[in-house]
């Protein structure tokens, strides 16, 4: 794989990443914060984000792929419990989730 090929891949990746952002700004002219279209786009955005997170936990790629699905789901489930117990303290809950996952992965994977 040549250096030029990698640079071209990076440029194409940047283009394919910026394009939806560019189109998003362009389309946002037709959306106002109080309208129904805004709520529709909110639904789709949160839906895609939730799907992305579910995919990372259930079918991850990269290094997480080598870890147990049961451990990932157990850590995620208990983190949600801690999030509610801690009155939605995101910082505390996130750290709890990572430490729990680290310990479970260390001893049971």
């Amino acid at each position, binding site marked *: 794989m040549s250096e030029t090929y990698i640079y071209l891949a990076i440029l194409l990746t940047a283009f394919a990443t910026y394009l*939806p952002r560019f189109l998003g700004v362009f389309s946002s002219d037709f959306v106002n914060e109080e309208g129904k279209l805004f*709520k529709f786009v909110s639904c*789709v955005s949160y839906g*895609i984000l939730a799907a992305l*997170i579910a995919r990372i936990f259930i079918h991850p790629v990269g*290094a997480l792929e080598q870890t147990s699905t049961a451990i990932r789901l157990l850590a*995620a489930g208990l983190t949600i419990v801690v999030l509610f117990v801690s009155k939605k303290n995101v910082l505390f809950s996130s750290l709890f*989730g990572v430490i729990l996952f680290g310990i479970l992965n260390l001893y049971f994977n």
Partner: protein
Amino acid sequence: MNKTFDNNFKMGCFAALGIPGISLAASFFALGALFKNSGLNAIQSFLSTLIGFALPGQVVMAETLIVNGTLLNILIAVFLTNARLYPMTVNLVPVIRQKSRPRWHYYFLSHFIAVTSWVYMLSNYDKITKESRFSFFLGLGSTLWILSTLATVVGFYTAGILSAKVFVALIFLNPIYFMCMIVSVLNKSHIVATVFLSVILAPILFLVTPDWSVLLAGSISGIISYFIFIR
């Protein structure tokens, strides 16, 4: 200029330096190591995050390079992976819009729209006055971008230093943080329904069409919730 780089900008920078920045930097740190193992050099790793700032697309690029995929493969795969940025941008811009600003400000700012900055802004915008949101988001997004770029380079140079178990725990921080942020703001019935439906649909659709599962699950869930709760 002063109106943009004001106290709201600084507040955005400080917000990014907390858990959003830590969790994102951990993921880009891991990305730097992945880039090294994929055959990229330090400058290429740096450039990738600098101009193509969106982690899932960058991972797809690295993995396609590993399997000697064509440039067309990379273009299509990255576009599909990052297509989620379209509704996210459409959703965010009306929230931070100021009528006095020229359009190019938003085209520039959109480079900083990624999951971490989007989730943080959408979860907190009602605590920030409308006039302050653009500057706040610019501070938030640009700081996250700089942190991510630096973390990619540090990850590249320190690949292999951390044990595999610590490394994988660091990667786990980002999805856990996203999950906590989303669950913590589930207070509207249409969003709650969308998230639940999407979490159920995504793994099922993955078995049918892995490449499209995220976009399809999110879109179907969003459309169903909209028609049940809003329309």
